[in-house]
């Protein structure tokens, strides 16, 4: 009777994904735990298929904050602006709030029944249809009401078409890694991080940064940053060895 079906074939949003990753590792929601799941999160986002196109912006926005957290854990000296700090605290709080409702929902899932548990009865049994047209209504009243209904529905639409949010350049992590390696090989010397990005969309910088982290981890590149906020210089490890 208590048949409840959870379909987890995909993540409906960034918070669901993030929470899953944290809970898999049995962690509390803290900055440290967020930092520790950043790579898994980014790896998942990097594989985003067409299914998620409409929500890609939401996933990337969270990814940006995660990268900020990650950077802070790698570079303890990294100064963050108060705005960025707020962003980090905000993400933790929102994740906690999301978890609250998720848990409340799981509680309810147990009492959910596929069919209603209570039933009404046929209404007005034995009452027959008596033609009683309202006196005051004319055809033009119906037309006016109809115009109003459509006006109301149309006013709900905002001017900005939803596609605007969807059309983000989607660059896969693999493509980015390949492109960086290709350019490093071609340059045979240090190149600037900024030159690795095409149009300066935050999402692309993010993917580039992520690609660099991956390459660093695999010891395929070396990076150097002389000053805080200074240029990041990237060099192929093969050039050095």
């Amino acid at each position, binding site marked *: 009777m208590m048949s409840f079906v959870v379909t987890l074939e995909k993540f409906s949003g960034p918070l669901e994904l993030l929470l899953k990753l944290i809970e898999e590792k049995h962690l509390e929601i803290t900055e440290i735990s967020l930092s520790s799941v950043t790579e898994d999160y980014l790896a998942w986002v990097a594989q985003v298929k067409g299914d998620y196109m409409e929500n890609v912006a939401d996933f990337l926005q969270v990814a940006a904050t995660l990268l900020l957290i990650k950077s802070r854990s790698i570079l303890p000296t990294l100064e963050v602006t108060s705005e960025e700090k707020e962003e980090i605290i*905000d993400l933790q709080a929102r994740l906690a709030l999301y978890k609250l409702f998720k848990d409340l929902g799981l509680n309810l899932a147990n009492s959910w029944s596929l069919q209603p548990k209570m039933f009404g009865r*046929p209404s*007005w049994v034995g009452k027959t249809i008596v033609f009683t047209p309202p006196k005051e209504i004319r*055809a033009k009243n119906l037309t006016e009401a*109809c115009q109003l209904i*459509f006006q109301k529905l*149309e006013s709900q639409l905002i001017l900005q078409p939803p596609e605007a949010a969807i059309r983000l350049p989607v660059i896969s992590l693999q493509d980015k890694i390949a492109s960086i390696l290709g350019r490093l090989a071609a340059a045979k010397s240090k190149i600037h991080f900024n030159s690795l990005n095409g149009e300066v969309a935050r999402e692309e910088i993010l993917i580039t940064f992520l690609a660099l982290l991956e390459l660093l981890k695999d010891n395929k590149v070396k990076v150097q940053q002389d000053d805080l906020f200074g240029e990041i210089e990237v060099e192929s490890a093969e050039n050095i060895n």
Partner: protein
Amino acid sequence: MILISVLESLLFTSGEPLSLEILVKASGEAEAEVKKALEELKKRYEEETSGLTLFEHDETYQILSKATNQMSVQKLVSGVFEEKLTSTALECLTIVAYRGPIGRSQIDLIRGVNSGYILHQLVLRGLVERRNNPNRSNAFLYSITANYLKHLGLSRIEELPHYEEYHTKDLQALLNDVTSTGLEPVKASE
């Protein structure tokens, strides 16, 4: 399982008279037990605080509203009829007129709220009729009655002003609420 409670639930939801046989089957109890419980229910309804009565005829049973409350019930029924069309009823009637034959769920979607009660009233007043949906069992399609059309002085539904325009207008695009993409800072308070 408490037999008397189950029997009351069964009789209540059915509306139609139910035979002893059906009650026995549906409750899964012995006939004698069922009969005894029905007697008990009957007695309970005889209390003056109850508004119900157990009507027995030819080994069938039906719950009815108590005869002594006939006056108030009549007032409800006629009151419901005489009332002017509320704005929500007008909205509902309009949707049925311009978009009919139309299913309940579509009406609900346009209005955003459950329209069951209002539709029922419109049917009882003879303004709207429902037919079986040929494409989906257990679903109905609602349209304006010929009677009401006549009353409006129209010989066919197409004579409603702007009928063509509103009848064919694509609704799908309008029904998606696309107000914001979320992820605003948490500061936004309700």
